[in-house]
C-alpha cells in the first residue's frame, strides 16, 4: 500500500515554466506554485487573441480598410471628382486575362459602345472588342497628395491613358471605385473621431463620477440619464435646420461628429462608473490610500489601467455603429455634404428606384459598409474574449 517515495521528486506543475527562485528551504516544500510564466497582461491578451481565427480575420480586414483609407489616393485609379464624359452610368468593366484570339494575355478591359434599343429607346452598353485598354500597375494619373507631398502614381490604370471603371460610373461619369476608396477616408475619419472623443469624455466623466461619488456622482448620473433619454434621430434631422444654408462641408462634418459624440459618451461613462465603484473598494486602491497617494495618482495608476480593457473593447464596438449611422444619415442627406465623399453620400445617389434599376453598381458602398462593420465587430469580439481576465484557457 505504502510506496517508497523519492524525496527529491518534486516536479513543477508546468515543466517548461521558468522557475521563480524560492527563497528559503521551507518554501521549496510548498506545493503552492506560481501560475504561468512571466507574461504581462498585454502579452497574454495578444496570445489569446492570435488563437482566435475569427478575430484575426477581423483584424486583417480592419487593417486593410485602414490602409485603404490612408493611401486612398494611391489605391483609387482616379480622383473622386474626375469626370469621364464619355461614360455616364457606365456599368462595371471586368478585367479579362483571356485574349479574344485565345490564350492568356496581360489583363485588359474592353471599352463600351453605346447602343440604343430601337423599341424602348433605352441606352445599353455593350463591350466593344475594338476598344481594348491594357491594365498595368503603378501608372501615372491624377495627382494626389499625401502628407503635403504630391504624387501621380496609382496602383492600377491603363497603359494608354484610357478610362477603366472597375465598378462603373455614376450620373456624372465619376468612377465609383475611386469614389468608394476615397469615401473610406471620410467614413473612417468620422468613426475614429467620434470614437476617440466619446471615449475621452466618457472615461473622464465615468471614472470621476464613480471615484468621487456623492453629490457629484448624483448630478452626473442625472445628466447621463437625460442624454440617454434623448431621441437621437430627430436631433440629427434638426441638425439640418440649425445649419446655415451654405455651410462649409467641413463645418457640417465637424458639427455632425460632435452631435454623434454628444449622444454616445453617456453609455461608456455609465458602464465605467459601475466598474470604478467596484475597483475603488479593491484592496490595492486602499493600500495606495494607505501609502498616501493622491486621488490623481490613484486614478491614473490604479483605476484607469484596470478599466482600459473595458474602454478598448467598447471603442472597437463603437466604430461599426458610427459607420452605420453615418451612412444612414448621409443617405438621408443629413450627414456628410458634397463635395466630401463618404459611403453614405454615394448611396444618396440611389435614393430613387429609377437610378437603382438603371445603375445597380452604385450600391457598391453597401458592400464596403458590410465588410467593414463585420471586420470591426469580429475584431471587437476577439478582443473582448482575449481581454477577459476570467477565461481559464
Amino acid at each position, binding site marked *: 500500500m505504502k*510506496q517508497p517515495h523519492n*524525496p527529491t521528486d518534486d516536479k513543477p*506543475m508546468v515543466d*517548461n515554466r521558468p522557475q521563480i527562485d524560492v527563497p528559503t528551504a521551507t518554501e521549496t516544500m510548498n506545493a*503552492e*506554485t*506560481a501560475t504561468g510564466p512571466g507574461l504581462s497582461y498585454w502579452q497574454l491578451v495578444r496570445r489569446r487573441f492570435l488563437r482566435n481565427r475569427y478575430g484575426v480575420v477581423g483584424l486583417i480586414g480592419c487593417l486593410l480598410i485602414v490602409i485603404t483609407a490612408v493611401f486612398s489616393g494611391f489605391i483609387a485609379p482616379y480622383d473622386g471628382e474626375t469626370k469621364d464624359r464619355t461614360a455616364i452610368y457606365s456599368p462595371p468593366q471586368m478585367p479579362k486575362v483571356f485574349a479574344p484570339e485565345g490564350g492568356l494575355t496581360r489583363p485588359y478591359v474592353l471599352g463600351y459602345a453605346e447602343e440604343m434599343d430601337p423599341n424602348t429607346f433605352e441606352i445599353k452598353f455593350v463591350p466593344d472588342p475594338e476598344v481594348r485598354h491594357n491594365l498595368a500597375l503603378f501608372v501615372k494619373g491624377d495627382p494626389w497628395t499625401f502628407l503635403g507631398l504630391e504624387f501621380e502614381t496609382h496602383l492600377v490604370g491603363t497603359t494608354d491613358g484610357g478610362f477603366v471603371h472597375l465598378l462603373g460610373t455614376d450620373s456624372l461619369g465619376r468612377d465609383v471605385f475611386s469614389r468608394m476608396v476615397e469615401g473610406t477616408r471620410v467614413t473612417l475619419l468620422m468613426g475614429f473621431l467620434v470614437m476617440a472623443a466619446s471615449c475621452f469624455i466618457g472615461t473622464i466623466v465615468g471614472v470621476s463620477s464613480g471615484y468621487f461619488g456623492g453629490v457629484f456622482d448624483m448630478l452626473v448620473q442625472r445628466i447621463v440619464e437625460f442624454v440617454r433619454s434623448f431621441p437621437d434621430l430627430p436631433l440629427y434631422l434638426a441638425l439640418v435646420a440649425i445649419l446655415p444654408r451654405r455651410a462649409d462641408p467641413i463645418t457640417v462634418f465637424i458639427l455632425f461628429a460632435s452631435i454623434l459624440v454628444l449622444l454616445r459618451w453617456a453609455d461608456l461613462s455609465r458602464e465605467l462608473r459601475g466598474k470604478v465603484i467596484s475597483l475603488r473598494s479593491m484592496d490595492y486602491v*486602499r493600500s495606495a490610500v494607505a*501609502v498616501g497617494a493622491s486621488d490623481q495618482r490613484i486614478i491614473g495608476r490604479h483605476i484607469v*489601467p484596470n478599466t482600459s480593457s473595458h474602454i478598448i473593447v467598447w471603442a472597437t464596438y463603437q466604430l461599426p455603429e458610427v459607420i452605420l449611422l453615418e451612412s444612414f444619415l448621409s443617405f438621408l442627406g443629413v450627414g456628410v455634404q458634397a463635395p466630401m465623399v463618404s459611403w453614405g453620400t454615394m448611396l444618396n445617389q440611389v435614393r430613387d428606384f429609377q437610378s437603382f434599376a438603371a445603375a445597380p453598381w452604385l450600391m457598391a458602398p453597401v458592400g464596403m459598409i458590410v465588410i467593414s462593420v463585420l471586420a470591426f465587430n469580429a475584431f471587437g469580439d476577439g478582443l473582448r474574449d482575449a481581454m477577459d481576465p476570467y477565461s481559464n484557457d
Partner: protein
Amino acid sequence: MTDPLLKIENVVVDFRTIHGTVNAVRGLSYEVARGETLAVVGESGSGKSVTARAIMSMLAENARVGADSRIWFDGTDLLELSELEMQEIRGNRISMIFQEPLTSLNPIHRVGDQVAEIIQIHRPMPKKQAMAEVLKLFQEVQLPDPEARLSQYPHEMSGGQRQRVMIAMALANKPDLLIADEPTTALDVTVQAEILTLLKDLQKSHNMAVVLITHDLTVVEKTSDKVVVMRYGEVVERGNTQDVFANPQHPYTRHLLESEPKGRPDELDPDAAPLMVAKDMRVAFRIAHGGLMSRKHVDLVAVNDISASIRRGETLGVVGESGSGKTTLGMAMIRLLEPNGGQITFDGERIDGLTRKQMRPFRTRIQVVFQDPFSSLNPRMIIRQILEEGLIVNGIGKNAAEREELIGQALDDVQMPRDAMQRFPHEFSGGQRQRLAIARAVVLQPEFILLDEPTSALDLSIQAQIIDLLRDLRAKHDLSYMFISHDLKVVKALCHNVMVMQHGDIIETGPTSQVLEAPKTEYTKRLVDAAFKVVA
C-alpha cells in the same frame, strides 16, 4: 476490509491553457470503502479538488482525463458513462459539498424548494411528500427551527446554516458516497467545529463513504480513517491517519505536520511607551431601507465605544467572528475609514479629524497589510512599481537607483528574491504575494502595521511561515502590530495582548496567555475550543 466503494486508478487530468498543458493530476490512485472517511490533504494547486471534480465528471471544458484513467464506483467505470447516465448518479448516489455555501445555493429560490427539487429529480413524488422529507433532513442536519427554514431564502441564513442546508441537499437521496470539498474553510472557526461533528455523525448513521478534501491537518486528524497526502498532482504519502500522524515517512508530510503556527511572541519591554492609542472609538453604518416615500435609516453600530492601546513593540491581537467589527475598528484607527467618534493618538499626536493631506506625514509611519493577497496587488503593475509607489508619493529616495536599493532591502526582509521586481503579481503564489504585500508596508519603514487577517486566505503551512516572518520583522525593525484574526492559534504565536470582540463590543481583554488559558466568558471559551480542539 470489504470491497472499496470508490476506487480510482491512475487518474490523469490535464488542462490545456494558454501557457501550454498543465498536468494537474498525475496518475493518482486511491480507494474508499463504505463507512470510511478518506482525507485528501494538500495545499492549493495540488490537484485534490480537480480529482473530486473528475469523479463527478464536472471538470472545466479545457480539461482532459487521461486514457488509462479508471474511476470505479460500485463496479462501474464512471468515465465510460454518458452524461445522461452520470446525471442519474450525481446528487443521487454520489453527492458533493462545496467550499462556498454562499454561492452554491440559488439566491432566488427558497431553500426548502431547492432541496425538494433534488429529491424530486431522482425520485418522482408529490411536492408535499418531498417537503416532508426535506423537513426530516433539516432536522437531521440540526438546523434550528427547521419548519420555518423551509420557506427562507439563502440570504436570510448565516454561513453555517447555509452549509447545513448544503449538507441536507447532499444527503437528500441517501448517497453512498459523499465528497466534501473544503466544507469548513469558508466558515467561522466556531462553526467549523460544529459542521465537522455533524458530518461525522451523519456518516455513521448513513454508513456512507466520505472523501474529505482539506488543507487543514487538524481536521484530518480528528475526522478521517485514512489519509492521502498530495503534492503536484501526485500522492506523496498514504496510510491510516493515526500511522501517518504518528510516523510520517515523506519529508513533505513532516513539513505539513510541523507547519502549525508555533512559538511565542518575544518579550515585551514593560516600560515601552504607548504608540497607538484609540479612545472611545465609534463607527456606525447608516443603512437605508423602506420605500421612496417612507425612507428610514437604521444606524448599525459596528464599533461601539472601544478603547485600545498599543505600546511600542507590542502586538495586539483582535479576535472575533466575522461581523464582530474587528476589521472596522482597525481601519478606523489607521484612518482608512471615517470613525463617527473617538480619539486616536499616534505617538503623542492626535490624528483623528486630520484631513487626508494632513494625514500624509503619518502614512509612512502607519501601514497596513490586507487579508486577500490576490486583490491587494494591482494586477497591471510590476512588483517594482507596486513597492515604489509609497516611496515616490512620499518623496523617499532621491533617484530611481536609490529607490531600487530600498525596494531590494524590503524584498530581502520578506525573503523574496530581488528579481521579483520585474514580475507581475499573478506570477506568484498566495504566500509569495502576501510576502510582497508585507514588503510594500515594510519598504516605508513604518512604526505601526495593521495586519488584517494576513494569513487567513493562505494555506496552513504557509500561514506558519508568514507568522515567523512577521515575528522576525517585528524584532528587526522594532515594529508594533495590531493583528486582526479569527484564529486563536495564530494569535497565540504572535500576540502579547489580545482583545476579544463580539457585535462591536469588547468581551474580554488581557495578556494572550491569560485569556487563552483561563477564558472568562463563554464566547471566548468557544473560540478557544474551536481553535485548539476542532471536534468537540
